[in-house]
């Protein structure tokens, strides 16, 4: 069942344009800061897609986590590296990567349009409550694993950015 009506269609095409153009901006921007700003627009566009696909909670989580946390973290990391390290140019692998990606895109689009997907006609958008129940019953083990992963990442990140002086202090004590 496709999305009926003018509104979703209009939103879809608008969001596609915004997302893809800003993703292109990430690729083309010479300044790393500009690339991050384009990336943020892409994140917001993807959140729009999530709303179109009737996953409001995920969309909001996308904005909170990606725009509010990950993008801000990236900005912070960029500011902590000096001005000279803020260019966003390509390595020699630019042209091969582009060729590979274009080939991959061609294959993917061919597959997408050639396959007869078994589309449903009776979609019922799950509520946040359903999602919460699923996470804490069916998927409780992955959920716990994800929380462990986050804790490990937190501690790992803190250990990584400690300065040598602090490590020396800890070794002495």
């Amino acid at each position, binding site marked *: *069942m*496709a999305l009926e009506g003018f509104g*979703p*269609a209009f939103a879809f095409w608008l969001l*596609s344009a915004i997302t*893809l153009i800003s*993703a292109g901006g*990430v690729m083309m921007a010479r300044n*790393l800061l500009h*690339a991050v700003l384009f*990336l943020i627009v*892409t*994140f917001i566009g*993807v959140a729009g*897609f*999530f709303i179109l*696909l009737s*996953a409001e*909670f*995920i969309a909001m*989580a*996308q904005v909170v*986590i*990606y725009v509010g*946390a*990950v993008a801000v973290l*990236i900005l*912070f*990391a960029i500011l902590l*590296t000096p001005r000279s*390290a*803020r260019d966003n*140019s*390509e*390595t020699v692998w*630019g042209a091969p*990567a*582009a060729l590979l*990606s274009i080939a*991959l895109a061609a294959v*993917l689009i061919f597959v*997408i*349009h050639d396959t007869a997907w078994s*589309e*449903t006609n009776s979609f019922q958008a799950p509520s946040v409550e*359903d*999602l919460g129940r*699923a*996470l804490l019953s069916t*998927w409780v083990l992955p959920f716990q694993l*994800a929380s462990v*992963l*986050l804790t490990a*990442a*937190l501690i*790992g*990140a*803190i250990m*990584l*950015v400690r300065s040598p002086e602090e490590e020396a202090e800890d070794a002495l004590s």
Partner: protein
Amino acid sequence: MTPGLDHFLTVGALLFCLGLIVALSKRNAIGVLMGIELMLNAVNVTLLAFHRFTESANPVAGQTFVVFVITVAAAEAAVALALAVSFYRNRETVDVDRINLLRS
């Protein structure tokens, strides 16, 4: 034209390929990370598109998957940026081509 599954999948694929170009070709470690984030987002769009448009025995599975992907992506971003900052501190560069300590 009403958007259906094909359209969402196409957008996801294009986004993925753009992310791939960025991840493969950028000189800066943080730029590479941004490419990876783009690819993860493309995957999320695809997952939710399937969740929305296809038959499933478990109707929340698609959203659950996306939650896990976002979680892992956040953890990955934190560690990767910590690596970049830490690496810059030790080697004064974030150029991925010059991260070659293991090369003799």
